[in-house]
């Protein structure tokens, strides 16, 4: 990073608060206290916390040897990790030691997008940011500020911004990730799937994964349970155009033509009904709209689906019969990253319906009812009224768009067009929008229109390099943070506390949020000085011991019934019909098909292949590629090409090529992996590579970015998700 160490005094901003210094001191002391409190053996100190390399939030134990971070292990008390972290979780050590980390606050000197910065103090950076935000609020109103925040660390920042009058909050977790499934399940059952997914893989006798590539998707508990299912000999059905790791464990592998899953699901429904395999009692007592469904589904035979999906009718029949045989301990997994083709709610509605016909809601081996620890909120003063419409969904264009997570691309287009009203500042916490949102060119166009871009991150990722002010946060192993109160099989609460102090001038998210609030004149929203007061308040208000909590890292609540088998009563109070809506009255009301519709996906132009993408077990999105430990496993992505295609195109395994998409966008060079493990009509890449930030020294231009090639996205009319799977690429040689 080009930094001018001689600090130019162009930031003429007042109020160097002493509160900041005082809190800094106490924050360091807390680290020592935590270390002193922990059990000591052979110079090794063990401190429990929870992981943040992804959003699963596994409980961990940090090992500190002679004051230095040594390793991480799962916390055996934690129900999510059960004493074992995933590879990324173990590799968290590399995030602490990453030499490329952001080390001190940076304020831009030159124009946006260029790499030239003033290294500054926290006081200056925060005062400057507060001043800019206040100016913008003054001029354009609080609605002109949008916050993008992903992950639990953003809680405090969002609190500050809410107090500031901001209402435009978004996260990629809805429109780029789980939105369609949550909407589809809410429409059908009146309840979310939620995270961690409420799927009971652990006890299941048979389940189908539609694209969910467990084993590459390393959401820890799910992978652990997946292995248990394999060991128990559960029937696993995997539907994927690529022979994924999960597919290699499956009894049935359905090599589906991409984008045609709804056809398969409709055929499954057809067989369930035609062959009378569905759960009649459940359908009778708990569902709404079976008759219209029965009529509707008639034409969607396995033979019909074969023409769409390429899956043999026999295989379609056999797999759904297998699911039916084991009902209710069988299910179709709703997936997680499900924004695929822009008509995804309809697909996920079909998933919800198959499950309903299996009568598996709140049943052992299918969907359990998640329970949550009851921890009171901190009593903050009420937020100011913000009586304006959110910017990302004008006139409720997408009637079922998420409220908390919003539509990221809606903020982006409003920023570009100024409609429904102008957006002048973005505050970005923990999301690398350049790689996260489809069509990065558009994101950059929007950024160029902004008056102010504030980024809080831990590494100089692409988004930070576009910022006006970059605030370096301490990583999760170096700070206190919000509690982990995840819905799960058993209520529990987990703590995040510092295992080691931050190595440079990085600060904790809560501290940044609080300081910013102070500078924005919102001090009254922070009755607590140090986050430990906040945590202690909440934990003790729940009747728990804070000291024990810090020592154990996790407190478990009492077991509660989570299945009908345990005596749980089945009820669906949150749908209009108070039943499971096979026929969705809500969709009908808004002018959408109340029964799931199949749309044939566009075909690739001749010579082009559909671009698919997904996870590699050792990386998380675009945030771990500079982690030196994880780089030692995988340091670039490859493009998977079917062997026969490779032979025709004379592509050699290991050679570098460029990919060009349908809009003429050229990727960085990327290695070819010639493999039998993918259909001939598509190619596949791991997401998150091809970094263009030079400051990620070893990740810079390693591999290709899928995001860059995703210049086309199809928006789901029901909930506003961005389907990213309709992009096509061809090979270009050097």
């Amino acid at each position, binding site marked *: 990073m080009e930094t001018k160490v001689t600090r130019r005094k162009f930031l003429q901003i007042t109020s160097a608060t002493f509160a900041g210094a005082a809190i800094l001191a106490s924050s360091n002391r807390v680290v020592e206290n935590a270390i002193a409190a922990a059990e000591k053996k052979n110079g090794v100190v063990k401190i429990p916390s929870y992981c943040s390399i992804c959003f699963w939030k596994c409980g961990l134990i940090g090992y500190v040897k002679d004051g230095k971070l040594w390793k991480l292990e799962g916390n055996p008390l934690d129900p999510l990790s059960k004493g074992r972290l995933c590879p990324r979780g173990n590799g968290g050590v590399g995030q602490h030691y990453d030499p490329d980390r952001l080390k001190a606050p940076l304020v831009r000197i030159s124009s946006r997008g260029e790499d030239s910065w003033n290294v500054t103090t926290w006081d200056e950076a925060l005062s400057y940011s507060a001043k800019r935000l206040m100016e913008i609020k003054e001029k354009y109103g609080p609605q002109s500020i949008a916050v993008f925040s992903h992950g639990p660390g953003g809680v405090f920042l969002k609190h500050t911004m809410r107090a500031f009058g901001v209402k435009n909050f978004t996260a990629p977790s809805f429109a780029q990730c789980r939105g369609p499934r949550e909407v589809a399940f809410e429409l059908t059952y009146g309840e979310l799937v939620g995270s961690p997914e409420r799927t009971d893989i652990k006890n299941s006798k048979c389940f189908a994964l539609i694209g969910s590539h467990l084993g590459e998707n390393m959401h820890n508990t799910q992978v652990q349970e997946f292995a248990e299912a394999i060991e128990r000999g559960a029937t696993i059905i995997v539907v994927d155009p690529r022979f994924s790791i999960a597919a290699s464990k499956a009894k049935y592998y359905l090599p589906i033509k991409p984008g045609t899953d709804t056809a398969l699901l409709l055929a499954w429904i057809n067989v369930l009904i035609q062959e009378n395999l569905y759960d009649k009692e459940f359908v009778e007592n708990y569902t709404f709209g079976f008759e219209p469904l029965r009529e509707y589904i008639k034409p969607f035979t396995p033979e019909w689906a074969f023409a769409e999906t390429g899956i043999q009718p026999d295989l379609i029949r056999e797999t759904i019969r297998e699911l039916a045989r084991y009902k209710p301990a069988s299910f179709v997994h709703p997936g997680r990253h499900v924004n695929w083709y822009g008509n995804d709610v309809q697909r996920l509605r079909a998933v919800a319906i198959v499950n309903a016909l299996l009568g598996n809601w709140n049943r052992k081996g299918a969907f359990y009812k998640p329970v949550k620890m009851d921890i009171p909120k901190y009593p903050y003063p009420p937020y100011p009224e913000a009586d304006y419409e959110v910017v990302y969904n004008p006139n409720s264009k997408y009637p079922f768009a998420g409220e908390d997570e919003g539509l990221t691309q809606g903020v982006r287009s409003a920023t570009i067009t100024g409609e429904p009203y102008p957006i002048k500042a973005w505050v970005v916490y923990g999301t690398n929008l350049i790689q996260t949102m489809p069509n990065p060119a558009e994101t950059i166009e929007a950024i160029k229109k902004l008056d102010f871009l504030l980024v809080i991150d831990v590494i100089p990722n692409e988004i930070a390099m576009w910022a006006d002010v970059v605030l370096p946060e301490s990583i999760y192993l170096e700070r206190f943070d919000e509690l982990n109160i995840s819905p799960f099989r058993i209520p529990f609460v987990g703590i995040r506390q510092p295992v080691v102090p931050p190595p440079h001038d990085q600060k904790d998210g809560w501290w940044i949020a609080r300081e910013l609030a102070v500078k924005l004149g919102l001090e009254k929203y922070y009755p607590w000085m140090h986050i430990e007061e906040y945590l202690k308040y909440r934990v003790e208000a729940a009747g728990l011991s804070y000291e024990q909590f810090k020592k154990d890292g996790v407190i478990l609540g009492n077991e509660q019934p989570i299945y009908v088998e345990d005596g749980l009563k089945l009820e669906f109070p949150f749908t209009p019909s108070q039943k499971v809506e096979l026929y969705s009255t809500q969709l009908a009301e808004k002018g959408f098909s109340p029964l799931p519709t199949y749309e044939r996906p566009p075909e690739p132009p001749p010579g082009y292949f559909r671009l698919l993408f997904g996870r590699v077990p050792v990386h998380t999105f675009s945030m771990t590629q500079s982690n030196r430990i994880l780089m030692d*496993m995988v340091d670039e992505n490859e493009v998977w090409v079917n062997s026969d295609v490779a032979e025709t195109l004379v592509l*050699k395994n*290991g050679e570098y090529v460029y990919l060009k998409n349908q809009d003429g966008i050229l990727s960085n060079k990327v290695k070819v992996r010639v493999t*039998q*493990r993918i259909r001939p009509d598509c190619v596949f890449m791991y997401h998150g590579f091809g970094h263009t930030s030079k400051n990620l020294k070893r990740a810079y231009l390693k591999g290709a970015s899928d995001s860059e090639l995703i210049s086309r996205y199809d928006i789901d009319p029901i909930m506003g998700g961005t389907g990213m799977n309709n992009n096509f690429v061809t090979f270009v040689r050097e």
Partner: protein
Amino acid sequence: MNELVITRHNEMIDPHLSIWGWEIPVYLFLGGLVAGMMIISGYFILTGRTKNTLCSCFRIPVIGIVAISLGMFALFLDLEHKLYVWNLYINFKWQSPMSWGAWILIFIYPILILGILIRIPDEIGQRFPKLLDLSNKLRNKQQFVKLLGALSMIFGGLLGAYTAVLLSAFSARPAWNSPMLWTLFLASGLSSAAALVHLIGKDPAERHMLAKADNGFLIAELIIIILMIIGFVSSSKVHIDAARLILSGPFTAVFWVFVVFIGIIIPFIIQILSVNNKIPHTNVAPILVMIGGLILRFIVVYAGQYSHWSRNVFTGY
């Protein structure tokens, strides 16, 4: 089709072994050369030619000492933990060819030194009369001279074979794992040594004889190469793949052009002609032989590191 994807990418190990660079082939070549020279010089000593030729008794061991020292230095350069090298000489590991080698090299020095002592050139003798005395005394002990000749041949043979056994003992590397390799290296060492002696020899008769001997060694080498290839291709899949390295792989061109054609066939033809007095003796042939010998060591060392039990060099899987 079989796909094998391995996530390991350790330096010097992946995508194929590259632990040994130029140092080891140079060391093996010099070792082989010295071995050949010791056998030749031992033969001369044994057959009592010490009287009329300086070359075999003085110059050969002198060059031998220099060459073997250079070789050992190359080996030393290759060690990654140099400061610990003394560990080599506080142990003898009878199962380890490298341990054998280390100790053989130690015994070779006194033999070479004695080989020098038994015929000190006059110029040096005049300056160091005591040395001359010793030299004369030793030379007159028939039994001793015979023993020295025999020892020289034996240790030369051991050294030559060792340079190959060092590699062929690695059953993990199919391209090295041939029972013929030691004969190949011995023949090549002898041909290179004969070529060198030929090059530095003054006596036309001796040169004539060496050229003839050299041709014999070259023929032997060629036959051994053919036998080795037959041995490989009639063995397991991995050995067939190993043979493919020099039959239709990355080493094919260098091997056939430099080792076989330039290193064996051309010098053989030249020497046939000169032995039969069709053309005068030239230095071209022996130089080519030595170049061929050196390149042979490079190819063998590299091909062995390429060959593998589980990973196919040809498909990348």
